[in-house]
């Protein structure tokens, strides 16, 4: 729990900076909106939101810089777990803040997910889903490949038929169609 405060500072600095950036991009996009002579134009609210994001991001950065001198504040999200567990009435169910996976792994998982999203329509639901599930489960538990294969194929097929025949939600047939 006792993270070095510098890490939390750095996190807030980066987050605040990113939010300022988003705010700037969002605000500049409002200039593309056609102006009208209404009292509140279509651009009014987006402009307010863009400016607010810039300000809030700035405040976050300032807070992170200021807090360096007053290290008393707790890191949000990781406090108070003990209280929760105690009142849950089940001793031993103390759950720490979720452990953080390595960034490389996260990027890999997202990459696989995006590939799946991209091929879903051209390749079709059945093939791409089976491949996607097989990929993810085998990456996780390579030794249980038979179970993975059975699950991947069965799940894809069952879901496909349930949606198409049961609910008339036509999932992409792709190269099999």
């Amino acid at each position, binding site marked *: 729990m006792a993270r070095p405060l510098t890490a939390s500072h750095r996190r807030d600095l980066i987050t605040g900076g990113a939010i300022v950036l988003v705010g700037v991009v969002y605000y500049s996009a409002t200039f593309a909106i*056609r102006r*009208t*002579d*209404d009292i509140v134009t279509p651009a009014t609210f987006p402009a307010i939101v863009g400016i607010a994001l810039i300000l809030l991001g700035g405040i976050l950065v300032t807070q992170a810089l200021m807090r360096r001198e007053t290290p008393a504040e707790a890191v949000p999200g990781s406090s108070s777990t003990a209280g929760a567990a105690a009142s849950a009435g089940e001793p031993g169910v103390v759950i720490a803040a979720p452990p953080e996976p390595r960034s490389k792994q996260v990027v890999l998982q997202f990459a696989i997910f995006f590939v799946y999203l991209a091929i879903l329509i051209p390749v079709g639901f059945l093939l791409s889903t089976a491949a996607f599930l097989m990929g993810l489960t085998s990456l996780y538990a390579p030794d249980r490949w038979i179970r993975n294969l059975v*699950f991947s194929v*069965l*799940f894809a097929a*069952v*879901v496909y*038929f*349930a*949606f*198409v*025949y*049961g*609910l*008339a939600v*036509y999932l992409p047939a792709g190269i099999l169609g």
Partner: protein
Amino acid sequence: MRSMMIASGRRGTSAPKSAALTVGAVLASLTLVISGCGGKAQPPGEGGGDYPKGPVTVTAPAEPGSGWDTTARAVTESLQKEEIVTTPLPVQNRPGGTGCTWMTSMMEQEKGKDDQIAITSLASQTMKARGLCEYGPEDTTLIATLYVEDFMVVSPANGDIQNLDDLVKALGDDPQKVAVAAAGDDTLPFALFAKEAGISPADINFVNYDGGGEQTTAMLNGDATVAIAGMSEFRSVLESGDIKPLVTFADAPLAAPFESVPTAVDSGYDVTLSNWRGVYGPAEMPQAAVDYWAGALEDLSKSASWKETLEKNQWAPEFRTGEDAQQYVEEAGATVDAGVKETDIGSK
């Protein structure tokens, strides 16, 4: 049907117990059970031969509960009930760009197919006239027009505006003070009317609402002075007497109980515009399919259940097919084009 459903209910309750192993199995067994009574258990058909071979999807290019959705569901219900069409007719909702998204796919992706039909109306013509959509209903394979819904201007029963003259006078005095509740494209007939009455459409204080329910509330809570929409939107409140009709833009007096509502033309304002609803198919839809649907919809228009639906919703029959329909729609399109140019809706 009923025995089947009760049986499936029993199977349904026991299914999850045995199938708790995977999410998929639970979902599948139960959804398959539902499909037993859903009656659309076939994949999309390819057509050809004795048309229609498989299900034909009826698309409402808007949210469930919207006008287009209501039309799509009413049409399929009557077609199935009267057994005019016996293949499954799943209704799907593809909202987007006031129907533009789906119309574009019907013109491009679905080109030449025969297992798709969709609902359209005057609103799609406004979209095209305003340059917001590349295609309009007149560019598609228009199969038929089904009915029209007449526009009506209404005001609260106990408000200052009791008749059309009051409205024109109030608009003349200070158009800013007359908040006109309108939903999207319904501003068009009112703007045309204002112009006829010698008031610049640009001065009209249109306030946008999402449908008749919101418009009615706005009038009852005093936000809006008058409202304009298709008359079915105000059906129930008109009956209760909370709001009263001022004028309609129909080409002839309305059916009972609204026969005494003046039409704009009779009152000396030359505006006639009704919101027609129709059915269209993909670009280059095979002629056999077009003929089939023209025939099926013609049977529909004569059927008792459809007539009942029209009456319930206060829709006026306006059944046309082929050239006749095309011509009708093009004429409406011309009015919309002119109206949009003159009144410059949406970009004041």
